[in-house]
């Protein structure tokens, strides 16, 4: 790719993009100058990623223009964007796992594509050059699936730089990193601003303060604020982001030592790649407490949740629930015993998207006498149940006969929450319960979890948001490489302590 002309100024004017039922970007305008870091801030679903995908040539805007150095440009494909020096690092990495790092870069490095021949040597040399210049160490011959999340992110950066990016778009680059890795990345990015401009998407305001010169805030697809970062405190930015003062509820109850109801002993469980994702893990959840599980994602959280709910086979060790050995019992048995579960992927694990809301609300209980005579469904009762849960959990849908998949993320989460809490579970495993939902729904979900705790339920809260964990938990366990490194009480826990533990440093 020929070196693009330097970008002195990038100007977006009146960008509008519509998806079915949503106006993702509404008349958005903003500008970035050379060497500047612009933070693009907003809640999930505010339209940040859509806007950046338009800038990267992946989506076409319905209206509006993009201009570089005053000249209007049109990006029909990502190639067009790259050719003008715009490169994007996506939140979900855009890497092909069964190809090597070199092959991944070669995929986009079109000047090394010859007729019937691929110049991998030249690509490899370019990778080494870029990685040395920007001090981003990487092994060009490794397969991507062998790399850790942090390494994959470096590959993404190198890839984008190899293509000659002058304006780097980073979509939530720190969401999968430990606090320390985050600091490291921010340092690197600061150094890069000598040569590049950066647009940085985040909803973590501390990082925004640290890295950016200017900040633009999106709400419901529109720019509600655009100004210099240093003039505003994080609290002011947060209020602008949500449009109101938000007070997330906190756990203010006293630490009560209830009996242990859900226990894992020396748990060994294999992950999808065949390695031990849980390697001798010990954990206890007591009645009437919220146990927060902190950790960088990919350290065994998913496998732990699945092993406890009977979805993933346990190689060795035991799972005890309500003082009974439930190791390797079926998911149905765990559900019947009173274990609730809010899974990670709400669209595919939490609900059946093509089923109606009322059907989704009885997904676990349809065979019980309340909802069926022998094998015949009581449709009336199923509908009544849905209406009452719709009201008490404030589920916003046109009707309970609407398809579950047609609801917004926050409302889908409320459907799941309603279904699980209505069963009054003795213990509840809740995985990333507020990921990608708006502040209002977040507030509601948190208060529901706290209410369940007061009613004597034990809750295992798995989250990647330290703030959420620290706000809600009685105790906090830190998971690292399939083991619990340490359990702290909420009084002992600080951001710094947890950060070190999440990185695997135990004192």
């Amino acid at each position, binding site marked *: 790719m020929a070196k693009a002309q330097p970008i002195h100024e990038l100007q977006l004017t009146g960008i509008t993009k*519509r998806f079915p039922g949503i106006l993702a970007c509404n008349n958005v305008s903003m500008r970035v100058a050379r060497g500047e870091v612009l933070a693009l801030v907003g809640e999930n679903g505010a339209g940040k990623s859509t806007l950046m995908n338009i800038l990267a040539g992946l989506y076409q805007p319905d209206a509006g223009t993009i201009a570089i150095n005053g000249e209007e440009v049109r990006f029909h494909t990502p190639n067009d964007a790259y050719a003008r020096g715009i490169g994007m690092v996506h939140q979900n990495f855009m890497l092909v796992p069964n190809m090597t790092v070199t092959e991944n870069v070669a995929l986009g490095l079109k000047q090394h594509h010859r007729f019937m021949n691929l110049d991998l040597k030249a690509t490899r040399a370019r990778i080494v050059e870029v990685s040395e210049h920007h001090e981003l160490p990487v092994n060009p011959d490794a397969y991507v699936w062998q790399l850790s999340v942090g390494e994959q992110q470096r590959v993404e950066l190198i890839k984008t730089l190899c293509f000659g990016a002058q304006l780097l778009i980073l979509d939530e680059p720190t969401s999968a990193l430990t606090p320390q890795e985050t600091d490291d990345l921010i340092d690197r990015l600061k150094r890069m601003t000598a040569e590049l401009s950066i647009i940085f998407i985040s909803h973590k305001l501390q990082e925004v303060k640290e890295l950016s010169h200017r900040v633009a805030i999106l709400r419901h697809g529109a720019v509600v604020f655009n100004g210099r970062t240093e003039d505003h405190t994080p609290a002011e930015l947060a209020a602008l982001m949500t449009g109101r003062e938000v007070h997330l509820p906190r756990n203010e109850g006293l630490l009560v030592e209830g009996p242990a109801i859900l226990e894992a002993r020396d748990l060994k469980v294999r992950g999808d790649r065949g390695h031990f994702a849980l390697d001798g893990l010990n954990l206890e959840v007591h009645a009437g407490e919220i146990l927060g599980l902190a950790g960088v994602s990919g350290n065994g959280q998913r496998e732990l949740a699945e092993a406890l709910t009977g979805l993933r086979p346990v190689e060795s060790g035991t799972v005890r629930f309500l003082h009974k050995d439930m190791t390797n019992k079926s998911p149905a048995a765990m559900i019947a015993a009173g274990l609730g579960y809010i899974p990670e*992927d709400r669209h*595919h694990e939490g609900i*059946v998207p*093509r089923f109606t809301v009322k059907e989704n609300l009885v*997904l676990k209980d349809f065979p019980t006498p309340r909802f069926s005579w022998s*094998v015949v469904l009581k449709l009336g009762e199923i509908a009544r149940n849905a209406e009452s849960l719709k009201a008490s959990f404030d589920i916003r849908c046109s009707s309970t006969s609407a398809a579950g998949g047609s609801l917004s993320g926050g409302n889908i989460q409320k459907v799941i929450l309603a279904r699980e809490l209505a069963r009054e579970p003795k213990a509840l495993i809740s995985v990333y319960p507020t990921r990608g939902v708006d502040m209002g729904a977040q507030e509601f979900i948190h208060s529901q979890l706290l209410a369940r705790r007061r009613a004597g339920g034990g809750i295992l809260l798995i989250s990647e948001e330290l703030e959420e964990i620290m706000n809600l938990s009685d105790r906090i366990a830190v998971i690292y490489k399939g083991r619990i490194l340490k359990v702290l009480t909420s009084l002992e826990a600080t951001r710094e302590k947890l950060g070190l533990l999440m990185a695997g440093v135990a004192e």
Partner: protein
Amino acid sequence: MNRFKLFYGGSIVVLAALAAALGAALVLTAIGASPAATFVTIFTGPFTDVFGLTEILVRAIPLILVALGIAIAFRSGIINIGAEGQMLIGILAATATALALPTWPKAALLPVVILAGAAGGALWAGIAGTLRARLGVNEILSTVMLNYIAAQLYTFFLRGPMIDPGELETGSGTPQSMRLPEAAFLDRLVPGTRLHMGLVLALVLCVCVWFFLWRTTWGFRLRAAGAEAKAARYAGIHVPGSLVAAMGLSGAFAGIAGAVEVSGVHHRAIENITSGYGFAGIVVALFGALHPAGIVPAAFFFGLLLVGSDMTQRSAGVPANMILVLMGVLILCIVSAKMYLNNPYAQERAARFLARFRKPGAGEPS
């Protein structure tokens, strides 16, 4: 919006049907036949006499039964292309049962024969279901292979163990079984035609399938596993079990179709008895939107096509293979159209396109 949706859906279906007709017309032109004349013969020929009319229904019976089974499988997340083979095994089981119990009275024999057919079909489909659930074997490939295997098994039995001893005596050696005892016959509905009681059975089973899928916990389980296997598993539903059950049930319907065809029409197992109902049933199920209420009219329509294309062969010399062309193109058109029917993106684009032609102020449908 609803009016728009209806209009939108309607035009997509019409476009798909036109595309299929166009595809068939191309082939007809290639062999020098007149597409218009051929289509007229197909669609009007069968209505000219009682025989043609009843024959449409006769063809519709196995189509309804097979399509019901296929709808159950598809709705449960497993694709069954093996109805052809399941019918054959069902026919073998039904015929063997009927021949083994020649002295039983009708009230006992007929149900047993039909159940035997169901069991045969269920067993054959169960192989594919189990392989999918246990070993992750692609069920499309395995059911197709089982079709070929069943065809060979069927010929083997008709030429060997089950051949009519009469054929051996006369030396003609036609591969066919003995005639069933009369107690195993389904009664004829209209004397002098081949229309039989199977039609009533098929319609009753339509209602049963509807009730089963949408009104029982069993159906709920199967549909949940089919619509989103992951969520079903997370909700405690045993998905592999439901796949095997769905496949078995689906095969049972194909088996019943086979049994009904033997005891209603042919009264003995003969070669080429399935006449492609197993494949046509797939098209009927898709055309009927995988719902019993859609399957019945779709089956009548395809019954018409089958009878009509037989007539064109006789009158216009258009090979009966033509029907395969038509069905193949129809499948391609239906699955293509489906994406436009269900896709909100495409719908919105069409709505916005239409809105351009509306009077200003009429409001954009959303």
